[in-house]
């Protein structure tokens, strides 16, 4: 039985475990129909031209983990940003771990999707926001919607700022030979609210894990959301991350994606600017090797005038790694005075590495400034020579230059401890001994 059939036939069993009188039930049933009709995307689809899900579909994933697992904090401490105090929403094999988590209802809601979906006090918000910005056409998003049950729910009311950053971490323990996870997150920032979120997926063994995640983010007027995605998983873990962001006037949403690990990683990052003076920033660093595959798909839909978007993606690809970047900017007719910038720089380190990039502009307004730049190249020979002439061996010099190449994306990271962390990850990945403290 292939994965699609298995998922479709498991839907009934899934429905037994959740409240069918809930209005979300209709959304789920609708979504499974859509997924059944479309199935998994194939390479014939333009958006999936360079990324194949065939091998993943051959694996016999368990959809419902059988037993609960407990993790000791000291064993997984290193995966948390433990240098600072944070709110934590932790899932182990898709199940909420109250032991590792630290949630709050004090002025702001940092809690669980399952309670938001089931408790009447949240009904009003769920009605307004749940599955409203997520694509109704994308089959993987539909699949997630059909099985949506658990994930992070964050609601920051007007003028509120949570005391500390929020960490969302998904652990896979390897109790199942192969596990499919489908977290569903809903994040709402009301007017003038502000928050910082760090998201991480971590598999603890070399068993197969396939995560199909959907996150909906709503930023109301003048809200600020910083979202950091740390993708440094084992090479047996695959991730499809679908993020949909709805921005109202004056809001600023910044998404940083750090892709260092994982077997197959696909990021679908979609921004919809439903207001004026909106600022959207997407930054990414990808450093991969082996047979890793990272695919960044971004979409910025400029719907209203006077908005900005900035994209800066850097990639270093070694061995047999494959990188994909597809950045799409759509500027609607009324979205005059739009400023949209997109930059994608890549370095291929090995002869067998591949990079496919497609920066795409679709512009219907005339008074706009849109530009995109894309480069594929090597390190500057002269810079390399300079470092060598100062007594730095070639290997270190190369690593240093690559480090510098990737590092400048980090400038806009606003949590200093996270910045240090990522810096170290980059240095490790490139085997650079920095010789100085960050």
């Amino acid at each position, binding site marked *: 039985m292939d994965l699609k059939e298995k998922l479709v036939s498991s839907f009934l069993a899934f429905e037994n475990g959740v409240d069918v009188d809930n209005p979300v039930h209709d959304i789920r049933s609708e979504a499974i129909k859509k997924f059944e009709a479309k199935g998994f995307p194939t390479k014939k689809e*333009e958006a999936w031209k360079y990324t194949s899900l065939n091998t993943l579909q051959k694996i016999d994933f368990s959809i419902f983990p059988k037993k609960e697992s407990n993790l000791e904090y000291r064993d997984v401490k290193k995966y948390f940003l433990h240098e600072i105090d944070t709110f934590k929403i932790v899932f182990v094999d898709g199940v909420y771990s109250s032991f590792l988590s630290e949630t709050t209802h004090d002025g702001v809601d940092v809690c669980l999707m399952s309670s938001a979906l089931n408790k009447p006090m949240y009904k009003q918000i769920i009605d307004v926001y749940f599955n409203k910005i997520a694509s109704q056409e994308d089959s993987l998003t539909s699949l997630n919607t059909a099985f949506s049950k658990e994930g992070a729910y964050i609601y920051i009311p007007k003028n509120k700022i949570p005391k500390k950053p929020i960490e969302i971490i998904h652990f896979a323990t390897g109790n199942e030979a192969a596990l499919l996870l489908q977290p569903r997150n809903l994040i709402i920032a009301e007017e003038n609210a502000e928050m910082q979120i760090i998201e991480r997926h971590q598999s603890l063994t070399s068993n197969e894990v396939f995560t199909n995640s959907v996150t909906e983010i709503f930023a109301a007027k003048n809200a600020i959301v910083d979202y950091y995605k740390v993708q440094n998983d084992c090479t047996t873990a695959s991730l499809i991350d679908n993020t949909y962001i709805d921005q109202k006037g004056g809001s600023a949403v910044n998404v940083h994606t750090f892709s260092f690990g994982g077997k197959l990683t696909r990021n679908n990052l979609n921004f919809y600017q439903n207001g004026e003076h909106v600022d959207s920033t997407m930054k990414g660093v990808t450093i991969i090797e082996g047979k890793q595959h990272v695919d960044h798909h971004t979409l910025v839909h400029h719907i209203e005038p006077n908005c900005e978007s900035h994209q800066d993606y850097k990639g270093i690809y070694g061995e047999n790694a494959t990188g994909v970047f597809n950045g799409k900017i759509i500027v609607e*007719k009324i979205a*005059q005075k739009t400023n949209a910038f997109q930059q994608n720089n*890549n370095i*291929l*380190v*090995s*002869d*067998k*590495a*591949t*990079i*496919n*990039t*497609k*920066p*795409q*502009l*679709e*512009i*219907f*307004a*005339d*008074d*706009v*400034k*849109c*530009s*995109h*730049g*894309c*480069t*594929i*190249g*090597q390190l500057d020979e002269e810079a390399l020579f300079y470092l060598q002439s100062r007594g730095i061996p070639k290997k270190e010099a190369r690593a240093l230059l690559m480090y510098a190449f990737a590092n400048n994306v980090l400038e806009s990271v606003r949590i200093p401890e996270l910045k240090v962390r990522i810096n170290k990850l980059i240095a490790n990945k490139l085997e650079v001994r920095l010789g100085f403290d960050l």
Partner: protein
Amino acid sequence: MAYTEEELKKELETKEYEYGFYTDIESDTFPNGLNEEIVIAISKKKEEPEWMTLWRLESFKIWKEMVEPEWANVRYEKPDFQAISYYSAPNKKPKYNSLDEVDPELLDTFKKLGISLDEQKKLAGVAVDIVMDSVSVATTFKKTLAEKGIIFCSISEAIKEHPELVKKYIGTVVPQKDNFYAALNSAVFSDGSFCYIPKGVKCPMELSTYFRINQAGTGQFERTLVIADEGSYVSYLEGCTAPSRDENQLHAAVVELIALDDAEIKYSTVQNWFPGNKEGKGGVYNFVTKRGLCEKNAKISWTQVETGSAVTWKYPSCILKGDNSIGEFYSIAVTNNYQQADTGTKMIHLGKNTRSTIISKGISAGKSQNSYRGLVQVNSRAENARNFSQCDSLLMGNECGAHTFPYIEAKNKSAQIEHEATTSKIGEDQIFYCNQRGIDTEKAIALIVNGFSKEVLNKLPMEFAVEAQKLLEISLEGSVG
């Protein structure tokens, strides 16, 4: 007196297609529709050898299996392939020795197009192989070329006189099954040009062909084959104008260029098919497959100025097979009213030290849509491949669109690829500056557009550059809001 926006608009709307006339020459037209018999009939009509007929039939078989592509960013009513007549040739078909013998009506047509033969003969020194509704009616300067061993004739003539060359190269760069329109063309091509430059010969003049769709409801299926043997050089010009017609006409041409070791081919096009009127009615569908193959140290350079056609679907490409080969693509695409253009190039780097340059300028006005679609592919064995791409779009008015779809695929670490794209409008301050210096708005726009397109215009041969500049002005007149 100041030229107001309103006046500009009015003038543009009333401006009829300059080349919109219809020459009443008796034509020998086949019944509409396409089947094997028609394919055989075309072949027979052209007195082709058996291998050619078989090749056409094979293409037809492939075409039947294929579906029309839909990936391009253009919307149009699909042509009914059974409602098209696949062959139309001027009826009076004697072989002319001098211009006096040519049908005066035909000469008149050419005069209106501004390509008077005798004038060109004297002034420009251009040999013109005029294709009017598919059959070559006048070939000039053939003698001068023959002395150098250069073959420049219609493709049907080449099939008869130089079958070994045609057989060896036709379909090698654009295979029959390459795409829907290439397959169709391979099955039913009516005529086209053939050019062969022998080893080490530099063609002393610019070779040029004018295509023209004349008969109503006929599709134009041109086939061009240019072969530059080792160390040779040729500059080839192709220009198109078509008379005004209400129904959409289909133009599905195939151009194949082969540059052997150390050879260089420069291929320039000015395309000015009827773009349809201001309501978007009529106009030519231009679905063209153009591709060149570069052997060692060879160079192919495409330059195009696209101002016509209701729908354009065209990607002149270079396969950089030999080491050190060079591919270039310079393009200006102008769309106005309801025109749609999806054009660009493909640079396939296979050999070592291959280089390619892409400069594409898109100008959209009115309610038109202009897309750049390009592919730069560096294969794993293409060491030190280098590409530079630049796509700039200029938008005029807020009802048009400019789109960019660049695909970049690199499989070699030594590749160096740069791609830049910008989209902007003509700055008010730029126009103001010109106005201030006493240049009226319309002239200012022409000036700015000219500057914007200069990089490409500079690549055109002299005679074409002048015509192209004029075309740019004509197609954009009054389109600025």
